[in-house]
C-alpha cells in the first residue's frame, strides 16, 4: 500500500463532507472549499498511483489498479467539468463513489500480471478504456441527478434537488459533453482491445465472444445509439439520461468482471 493512500483517503473524506454540507446548506464557500480539497485529493491520488508505478505496479497491471485509476480519472474529469459548470451536487454524489472505488481497489487482493503485461497495445487499450469509463461515470452521475431533478419538476415537488440542483439544460449539456469526450476514447479502446486479443497466443475471434467483450460491445452500442439519436432524432433529457445509465451499467459490469477476475 502506498504511503500517501491515507492522506488521499482523508482528503477525499473531507471533500465529501464539504460537498454534503453544501448540499444541506447551499453555502457557496463550502462548495468552493470542497472543490479545492478535491483537487488536493486528486493530486495526492496521482502521487499514490505514481508511487506504485515506481514499484512496477502500474494502473493496468490488474483489475484493482485499473479501478483505482478509473476513480482518479473520474475525479479529474469532474474537476475539468467544474471549470465550465460548477456542479457541486454532482460532486456530492460522485466523490463518495470514487472514494469507495479507491478504497475497494486498495483493499482488494493484488493480482499478478500475465506474460503479456508489457504489451504497448494492451496498455493503450486499458488506459483508454479506463479513461472512457471515467468520463462516462461523470455523465452517469449527471444523468442520475437529471432524472431526480426532472421528476421533481414534473411532479411539482420542489425539494432539495430542485432548490440546489443545476438546471436541466446544464445537466443535459454535461451529458452531451461527456459522451462526446468518452465515446472516441472508448471506441479506440475497443479497437485496440480487439487487436490485442486477436494477437494473443491463444487469441482469436472466439475470445471476443466472452461475456466481458460482449458487454463492452453493448456499452459501446448504447453510447453510439445515444450520440446518433441526439444528432438525428433530437433525443435529449430523460431519454439521454436513461441511455447513458444503461451504457454506463454495461461498462461498469466489464470493470467488475476484470476486478473480480484479478490479472488482466
Amino acid at each position, binding site marked *: 500500500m502506498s504511503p500517501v493512500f491515507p492522506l488521499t483517503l482523508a482528503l477525499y473524506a473531507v471533500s465529501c463532507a464539504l460537498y454534503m454540507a453544501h448540499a444541506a446548506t447551499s453555502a457557496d464557500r463550502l462548495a468552493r472549499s470542497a472543490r479545492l480539497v478535491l483537487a488536493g485529493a486528486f493530486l495526492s491520488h496521482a502521487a499514490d498511483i505514481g508511487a506504485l508505478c515506481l514499484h512496477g505496479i502500474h494502473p493496468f497491471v490488474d483489475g484493482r489498479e485499473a479501478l483505482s485509476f478509473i476513480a482518479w480519472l473520474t475525479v479529474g474529469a469532474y474537476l475539468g467539468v467544474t471549470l465550465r459548470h460548477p456542479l457541486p451536487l454532482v460532486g456530492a454524489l460522485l466523490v463518495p463513489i470514487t472514494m469507495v472505488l479507491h478504497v475497494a481497489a486498495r483493499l482488494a487482493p493484488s493480482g499478478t500480471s500475465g506474460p503479456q503485461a508489457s504489451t504497448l497495445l494492451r496498455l493503450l487499450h486499458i488506459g483508454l478504456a479506463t479513461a472512457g469509463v471515467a468520463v462516462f461515470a461523470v455523465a452517469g452521475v449527471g444523468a442520475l441527478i437529471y432524472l431526480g*431533478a426532472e421528476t421533481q*419538476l*414534473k411532479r*411539482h*415537488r*420542489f425539494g432539495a434537488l*430542485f432548490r440546489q*440542483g*443545476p*438546471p*436541466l*439544460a*446544464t445537466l443535459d449539456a454535461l451529458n452531451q459533453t461527456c459522451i462526446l469526450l468518452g465515446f472516441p476514447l472508448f471506441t479506440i479502446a475497443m479497437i485496440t482491445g480487439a487487436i490485442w486479443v486477436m494477437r494473443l497466443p491463444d487469441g482469436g475471434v472466439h475470445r471476443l465472444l466472452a461475456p466481458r467483450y460482449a458487454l463492452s460491445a453493448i456499452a459501446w452500442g448504447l453510447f453510439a445509439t445515444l450520440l446518433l439519436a441526439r444528432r438525428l*432524432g*433530437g*433525443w*435529449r*433529457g*430523460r*431519454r439521454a439520461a436513461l441511455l447513458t445509465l444503461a451504457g454506463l451499467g454495461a461498462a461498469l459490469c466489464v470493470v467488475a468482471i476484470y476486478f473480480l477476475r484479478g490479472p488482466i
Partner: protein
Amino acid sequence: MLVAVGLSHRTAPVEVRERVALSGEALEAALRSAARLGSEALILSTCNRVELYLAAPDDRATAELRAAARDLLAENQRIEAPLLDTHLYLHGGAAAVRHLFRVAASLDSMVVGEPQVLGQVKEAFQLAQRAGTIGPLLGRALPRAFSAAKRVRSETEVARSSASMASAAVDLARHIFGDLQGKEVLVIGAGEMGDNAARHLAAAGAGPLLVTSRTFERAAELAARIGGAAHPWSELPALLERCDVVLSSTGAAQPILSRELVQRVMRARRGRWLCIIDIAVPRDVAPSVGELENVYLYDVDALQELVKDHLAGRQKEAEAAEAIIADEVDRFFATERSLGAVPTIKALREHFVAVARAEAHKVSGAFEGEQNRRALQALADSIVNQLLHAPLIALKHEEQSEALAEAVRTLFALSENDESAASVARGRK
C-alpha cells in the same frame, strides 16, 4: 351582519375553482341572485377564489345563507353541491370583516403581497355598485378594506419583499433552461398576470416576447406595453413550435392547448424543452399535457407549491401586516358602534330637551321679557348637555355600547327609534 361564503386556493384545488369561477354575464347574474339572499351582496371571483359577501339580518340566517350560496354556485356552474360543500368556508360578523380586509390586503393570497387582488376587489365593488347591490354595510366595509390594504402596502415590506407568481415563473424557467438569454417567451392572452410574468422573464434576460390573443388588437396593446411582437391567433401552433416558455392567462372557459396539439408541436420541436406556465382559472392547458416528454406544465396550484416556502421567510412582515388588519377591523367596528348608537343618542337628547323645555316653559311665566325667557331655555339646554355629555360619550365609544343603548332605550322608554337603532347596530356583529 356581514357574512362571507366562498372557496379559495386554501380550501379547493384548481380543478374545483375553475368550475365555479364566474365572469361576464354569469357573474352579473350570480350577483343579482346573491342580492336576493341578503340585503346587500358582492361577489369576488378571481383565479384563486370565488367569494360572496352578503349582509345578513342576524346570526340565525348564516347557516341558511351558506346553503343558499352553495346552491347558487353549484347551479351556475353545474357542479355537484356535495362536492362544493367540502370546499366552502363561512365567516360571519367580525371574522367576515377581517377576512375581507385580509383578502384586499393580499394577506390571504396565494402569493402574499401580490398587487392584483386589490384591483380585483375594487372591480368587484364597482360591479356591485352598478348592479345596486351595495348597501350601507358593504358601502362602509369596502372603503375601509381598501384603506387597510393601502396601509399594509405602505407600512410593511410584505408587498416589496413578496415572491410573486411572476417571479415563481422565472424561477421555474431557470430550473429548466438555466440562462434565459435568448429564450423565446410566448404570452397567450392579454391579461394582467401574463403581462407581469412576461416583464419578469424579460428582466431575467428572456426574449424575444411573442404575444397572441383571440383579439389581435389586445395582443398588439400588450405587445406594445411589454416590448414584444403581436401575432394573430391563427399562428398559435407555429408560435408554440418556436418558443421556449409559454405564459397562458386567457379567460377561456375550455382549455386552448390540448394534449394532441402540444404532442404535434413537440414532434416538430424535436424534443426541445417546453415550459408552460398556465396562470388562468379555468385552466388554459389540458392537465394531461404535463405528461408529455420534455413538457413542464405548471398551473396556479403548482406555483403556490413553489412560493409557499417564501411565506415562512416573511413571517415578521406578515405579523406586522396582521396587526394593521386587526387595527383597521377595530376602527371599522368603532365607527359601526358609533353609527349604531346614533338613533338612541338622538332620541335620548330629544327626550331630555323636551322634558327640560317643558319644565322651563312651566316656570317661564315668572320671568318677564323675551330675553329672560330665552335665557331660561338656554339654561335648560345647557343643563341637558352637561347631564348627557358622559352618557353620550359612552354610547359612542364603549365596547358594550349596544347593550348600553338597549338599557338607555328601556330606562327612558325610547321606543320610537328602537327599530332603526337596532338595524344599524346589527351591522357590527
